[in-house]
């Protein structure tokens, strides 16, 4: 379970987006408005840019959309420093079950180096962070959507549309502790059309 972003954001600092969060936000087509509403320093490590640019066969637009957000100053691209590189090395080298891919590792490493929060939806990454870096502030994409400032800036209808786009187009994962809030927001009927939600949410009657 991640620490709710609201508390992480209230203390200020850097917010580091991992590729999983960038992909979810890109799917909304209003990522710029969402990030601007947060009003904080939002960064993406250059390793994540490389990761998004490599190996896709479906011509996804994530690299171009990320560049647009950078050009609009909604996101700042950063590079790991010495301390961050050491954390990165520790996160990519070793047994498979205890390591992460470069983009995930670099996002966590930069958050550790800068004292910021990392927005990462990946379950294994969350587990490794809790075990090895209990002081690190963790958040997920849903934390961003549920942030009061984002709701206020987008309005309820646009917010619902953005969350549905992330769920349906990017197949965003929703942590168990946020399921009720997400279903409350989008409604039971719409939740039933979101394949990334658990069956217990999509087909509540069938499960009973």
């Amino acid at each position, binding site marked *: 379970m991640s620490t709710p972003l609201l508390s992480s954001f209230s203390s200020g600092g850097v917010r580091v987006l991992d590729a*999983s969060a960038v992909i979810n936000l890109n799917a909304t087509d209003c990522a710029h408005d969402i990030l601007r509403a947060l009003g904080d320093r939002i960064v993406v490590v250059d390793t994540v840019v490389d990761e998004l640019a490599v190996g896709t066969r479906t011509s996804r637009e994530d690299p171009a959309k990320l560049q647009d957000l950078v050009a609009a100053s909604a996101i700042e691209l950063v590079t790991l420093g010495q301390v961050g590189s050491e954390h990165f090395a520790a996160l990519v080298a*070793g047994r498979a079950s205890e390591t*992460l891919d470069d983009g995930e590792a670099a996002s966590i490493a930069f958050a550790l180096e800068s004292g910021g929060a990392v927005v990462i939806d990946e379950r294994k990454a969350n587990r490794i962070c809790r075990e090895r870096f209990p002081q690190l502030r963790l958040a997920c994409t849903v934390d961003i959507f549920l942030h009061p400032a984002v709701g206020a800036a987008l309005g309820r209808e646009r917010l619902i549309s953005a969350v549905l786009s992330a769920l349906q187009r990017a197949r965003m994962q929703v942590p168990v502790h946020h399921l009720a809030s997400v279903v409350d927001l989008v409604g039971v009927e719409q939740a039933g059309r979101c394949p990334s939600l658990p069956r217990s949410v999509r087909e509540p009657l069938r499960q009973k």
Partner: protein
Amino acid sequence: MIAATLQSLDPSVIGERLRIAREAKQITQKDAAAGIQVARTTLLAIEQGQRRVRIDEIQSLARLYGTSVNELLRHEAVHVDLVPRFRKLPNSSDPAAEAAAQLLSDLTRAEVELEALLGIERRRNYPPERPLRAGDVRVQAEQDALELRQRLGLGVAPVTDMVTLLEMELGIRVYVRPLESRISGVFAYDDAIGACILLNARHSKGRRNQTAGHELGHFISARNRPEVLHRDEGEMSREERYAGVFGRCFVTPSGAVRQKFQEVVAGSARLTRRHLIVLAHFFGVSREAIARRLEELKLVKTGMWQWFQDEGGITDDQVRQVLGDLATPSANSEDQMRPTTLRLSLLAAAAYGQGLLSEGQLARLLHLDRVELRRMFQDLEMLDDDVNAPPLLL
């Protein structure tokens, strides 16, 4: 911390992995050294394990080689490269063939690593190799195809899903991914990792079945020789003639084709599109393949397929009119293009479910983007928390 991390890894192992990654991309030591701004002798020392690589150097090298630092430093990562053996083939200068061979190599490495991580040993049920004998290879190919059918208990029944047959019955690694259209399939064999086949998802399921039959023939007669099969490639060599005939006899056995042809055309004075559509569907091959097979077996006149082509061909709409819901998705439809293979998907889902590999690691390993991977897992219901699912009794 960095010392503890990189010092714990054997420099000769890292060096060897870096050499394999460099050679896979056909980058010279000189160019790689220039890429990270060191002398060639320094790069050589790193590859030979005589000098430890620094984290900034390995990051640059990973970028240059199109891989990740994690793939280079993950203990369980498999570093077998099947591509060099393809470079000895006559058509090796074709970039599409090289890319397909690389993808086959990468997917095979991924599956082997997943098996190791999950502690699964792949069961092989390989038939014995049948090297080409003197004489007419077509006769041998038909005998061998029918013998394998008998061994698998198929009799003369149609095999409409060759991928599942190869994977589940024989234990051959099979992958279906979009390739350039002129590539039909890729085959390779390695004593340690076994036989592996890559089929083109851009081709119809019927055409893929034929390609799988051809590659199976290759596996039977010359498994140590890798192959990239090009679409509409002629059967120039004895090996290719054997594989072509083997594939046709395995997928469309002559006895079964003759019998089904008589049943389907009974009462008709002419061969129609409907007849070809039904026969192609029954045997799980393309309309052209069944038409050519009827010509080869002298059940219709040579040139019959060309006549249909000259008269407007057989369209997907006509197939749907005849078959209704039984029609398979058209080539290049979203369903058709979806990356498949039962086994690799399940292994990946198991590794993710057990927290052994992350989304980023699996996406890179399987050559999928994150959303494709999420879709694959969600299709498998693996992200579901279905508490009502029955427990395994094993």
